[in-house]
């Protein structure tokens, strides 16, 4: 894993001491809020509904156990004992005091972490496939290039005041687990005739005007990548609409100018920029790559695993949903669900963080990942250790067997925390998970992604949920709009709106009607919800959703 250079450490330390002075001056009154706000946002500090919120970047979602323990310590010492993992591989602390934030940042710096560029109109945390370096289906580990982009973009003088925030996501697998099509720039590592290159996707994004990204370059040689991205950001920096916040993202620039025009401008800019890179980026990449060398994998018998599978049905059920195929023989990727039924999606307590850190240290080559689906991954666990890992997880409420199932819901903080929200999302997620657990249906339903956002900003990715739920405010009452058929994978697709929204009391029954309609019309258990939706379309689901409503009203 990447470790800070002296430059990195000095930079973060200087930034923290600068911010400490700014906080002091804010508290003693020498800075007004108008002066202070941009400074705090530059350091990931928001003011939310009930408190400040500190957003900490977890670059490409990768952590070691020391870092995870530090996140736990911070949660306990300066927050309320837990943290919230987000879809952009950040952790958010919901309750810090302003005066404590400089200490929190110093604590983070001890383990080479920070909150810089987790807010503001800059290039945000670079996200990547959470199975990076482990997945059996991987062409190449996406993290070295994500790290290169992080180094290039952090404090890049040209890109500190972009028209709007800018998000980059990278995948190294054809099975895209990084939602690259919903990023300002999505990068897909591909192999062509034995050569590694990049497909560059541009102008994807969710939020108010959701769009699936378009292919800007089909196959970019590795040596062109960084100057090419610089050209893209630089073209948008000039063309991007600064006059209108709602039209400022690159997705609108691409839409307004057309992909051909953008491609031509990028090519022009690239030709100018490229010589200034002169291979330095490639040297850096090579050095970074060494930091991501795979661990020394063990060879051992997987007998304990096979034994547990055969004799312990609870273990088997968990293993079936929460393990994925690893590239190394005898290994598996373990997904730890932060979605225990009825709990807040993405929250982990300090105790849980410490346990996960301990397991990573003992059984996982000291690596952890945060997934954009708000779960935690132990990327490299030998099968012989998996029964012990599972037993430890279960004891701490982390043994839920629901990865990819209906209760593995993405939910943004919504109006329980977020100042921008128009409705709550967390309680809806909790109720849906509890309902389907009680019905004992979730394994029967199979693969199902429900994603919930508390407002049109779409932090909960609802547009790409198989079932998407968007919380709105209708005349002072929470209302929930449903979309169906969204897909976040390589052939990403935005969901279709079903019709009028549902009240907080009616949304869970509405979801239940959709699910029963699916169970009725699927050709068999092997036909997933998404496949069934693609086959039959919106109509039967719409009928199930609203006819029952109509009947209920008629009966009243």
């Amino acid at each position, binding site marked *: 894993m990447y470790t800070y250079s002296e430059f990195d450490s000095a930079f973060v330390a200087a930034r923290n001491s600068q911010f400490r002075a700014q906080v002091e001056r804010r508290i003693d*009154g020498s800075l007004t809020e108008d002066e202070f706000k941009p400074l705090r946002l530059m350091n990931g500090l928001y*003011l939310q509904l*009930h*408190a400040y919120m500190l957003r900490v970047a977890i670059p490409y979602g990768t952590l070691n156990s020391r870092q995870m323990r530090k996140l736990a310590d911070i949660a306990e010492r300066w927050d309320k004992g837990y943290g919230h993992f987000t879809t952009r591989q950040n952790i958010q602390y919901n309750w810090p005091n*302003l005066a404590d934030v400089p200490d929190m940042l110093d604590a983070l710096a001890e383990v080479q972490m920070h909150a810089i560029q987790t807010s503001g109109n800059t290039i945000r945390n670079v996200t990547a496939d959470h199975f990076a370096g482990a997945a059996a289906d991987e062409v190449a580990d996406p993290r070295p290039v994500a790290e290169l982009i992080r180094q290039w973009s952090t404090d890049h003088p040209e890109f500190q005041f972009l028209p709007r925030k800018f998000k980059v996501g990278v995948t190294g697998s054809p099975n895209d687990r990084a939602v690259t099509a919903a990023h300002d720039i999505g990068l897909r590592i591909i192999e062509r005739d034995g050569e590694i290159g990049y497909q560059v996707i541009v102008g994807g994004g969710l939020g108010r005007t959701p769009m699936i990204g378009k292919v800007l370059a089909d196959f970019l040689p590795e040596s062109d990548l960084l100057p090419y991205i610089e050209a893209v950001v630089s073209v948008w920096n000039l063309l991007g609409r600064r006059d209108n916040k709602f039209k400022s993202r690159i997705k609108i620039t691409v839409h307004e100018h057309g992909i051909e025009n953008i491609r031509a401008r990028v090519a022009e800019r690239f030709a100018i920029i490229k010589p200034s890179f002169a291979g330095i980026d490639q040297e850096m990449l090579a050095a970074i790559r060494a930091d991501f060398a795979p661990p020394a994998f063990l060879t051992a018998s997987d007998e304990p695993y096979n034994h547990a599978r055969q004799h312990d049905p609870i273990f088997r059920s968990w293993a079936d949903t929460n393990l994925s195929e690893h590239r190394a023989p005898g290994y598996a990727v373990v997904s730890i669900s932060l979605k225990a039924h009825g709990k807040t999606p993405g*929250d982990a307590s300090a105790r849980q963080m410490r346990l996960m850190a301990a397991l990573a240290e003992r059984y996982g080559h000291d690596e952890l990942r945060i997934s954009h689906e708000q779960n935690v991954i132990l990327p490299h666990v030998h099968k012989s250790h998996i029964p012990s890992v599972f037993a430890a997880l279960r004891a701490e409420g982390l043994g839920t067997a629901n990865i990819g199932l209906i209760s593995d819901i993405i939910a943004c903080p919504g*109006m329980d925390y977020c100042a921008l929200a128009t409705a709550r999302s967390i309680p809806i997620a909790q109720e849906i998970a509890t309902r389907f657990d009680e019905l004992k249906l979730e394994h029967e339903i199979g693969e199902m992604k429900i994603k919930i956002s508390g407002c049109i900003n779409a932090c909960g990715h609802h547009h790409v949920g198989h079932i998407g739920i968007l919380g709105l405010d209708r005349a002072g009452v929470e209302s929930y709009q449903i979309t169906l058929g969204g897909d976040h994978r390589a052939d990403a697709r935005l969901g279709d709106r079903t019709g009028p929204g549902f009240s907080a009391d009616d949304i869970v029954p509405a979801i239940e009607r959709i699910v029963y309609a699916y169970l009725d019309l699927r050709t068999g258990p092997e036909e997933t919800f998404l496949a069934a939706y693609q086959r039959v379309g919106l109509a039967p689901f719409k009928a199930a959703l609203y006819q029952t409503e109509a009947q209920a009203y008629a009966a009243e």
Partner: protein
Amino acid sequence: MPREFTPKVITANALVQGDVVYFTAQDTWTRDLRHADVLTDEADADLRLLSAQARTGEVVGVYLADMKPGTDGPEPVHFREEFRRTGPSNHFHGKQADIASRT
């Protein structure tokens, strides 16, 4: 016809803790909505809002929030103010915990 002025309180977030506070009749900040000053006169509300906004060393984001009379002091009209008054749904944190620990 001018719209009728509905009752309001002045609310903000405390500068250091960031939590929700309300302006009292004594020009101090309280964390308990029951102790907030309910403003029923528009001109008065505008003036008080200005003076509250001037207290930049104590609070941020000062605004007027709609209230209706309740059995135990003002009650929020909109659900957003209800959550600000109580705290989040998913944890027993914030105002609800503070008030419970005091009573």
